[in-house]
């Protein structure tokens, strides 16, 4: 099983604009989070060691806090940060549904210019995690998606039909 989650996409925008969308508070608040989610509150101290602390409001009006601590900032190419669940005060909290989820995860985002487009890649892995936490992380997506030889697809197809 893999311990790393990777997602990448070519965005139809210049590298500098993609970088800004990730690193300026007002811009980040506009798009970060899945469909139907809003970021009503966020503070950003954009420097190595600084923190982005945000509240996510879910479609059902429940709220969830999260926190990024920046480690490496290499404009406009690379952003490395530690990500965790949080509370309103900025403390680190456990995953609400999985007590053995890593408290902290390391996220490396790279921005590669491709003419007027940008290849964005997010690599995500457990940080300072115990063995059990690493197992939980890897069984959650990478393992199921890539290592289970189609079982996951079959089961999700069945779920969709039932």
């Amino acid at each position, binding site marked *: 099983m893999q311990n790393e989650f990777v997602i990448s996409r070519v*965005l139809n925008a210049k590298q500098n604009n993609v970088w800004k969308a990730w690193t300026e508070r007002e811009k980040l608040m506009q798009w970060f989070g899945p469909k139907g989610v809003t970021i009503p509150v966020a503070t950003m101290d954009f420097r190595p060691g600084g923190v982005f602390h945000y509240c996510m409001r879910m479609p059902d009006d429940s709220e969830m806090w999260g926190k990024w601590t920046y480690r490496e900032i290499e404009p406009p190419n690379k952003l490395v940060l530690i990500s965790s669940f949080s509370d309103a005060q900025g403390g680190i909290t456990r995953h609400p549904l999985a007590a053995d989820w890593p408290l902290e995860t390391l996220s490396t985002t790279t921005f590669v210019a491709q003419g007027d487009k940008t290849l964005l890649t997010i690599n995500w892995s457990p940080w300072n995690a115990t063995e059990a936490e690493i197992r939980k992380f890897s069984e959650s997506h990478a393992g199921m998606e890539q290592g289970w030889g189609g*079982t996951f697809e079959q089961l999700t197809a069945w779920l969709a039909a039932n």
Partner: protein
Amino acid sequence: MSSDQLSSTFAALADPTRRAILARLALGEASVAELAQPFSISPPAVTKHLKVLQRAGLITQGRQAQWRPCKLEAAPLQEASDFISQYRQFWEQSLDRLEAYLKVVQAEPDKKSSGKTREKKNAK
């Protein structure tokens, strides 16, 4: 939605034979004998795996005396599936929104060059 339920689901899913059993049941109900067929293991060994799946709530077994068919149970599987796909979904949907946002931003410089009186946004 307790984390204990999720943990027992994942523990049950961790074994390749059990995953294969679930994949078979996704095609329809099956008896223990039918489930044992594709594997080079004995029916008692299959029964053992079925017990684990049953305890995790992933399957149930019918009560008809002769043919006690096993079937999948949707709720815990759905919960596990949601948990598994939540981060990819999170990022896929965030990136969809980012694309839409960037489209608007990309259009802005044109507006500015054509209208000089327009104030520069984001003075910060």
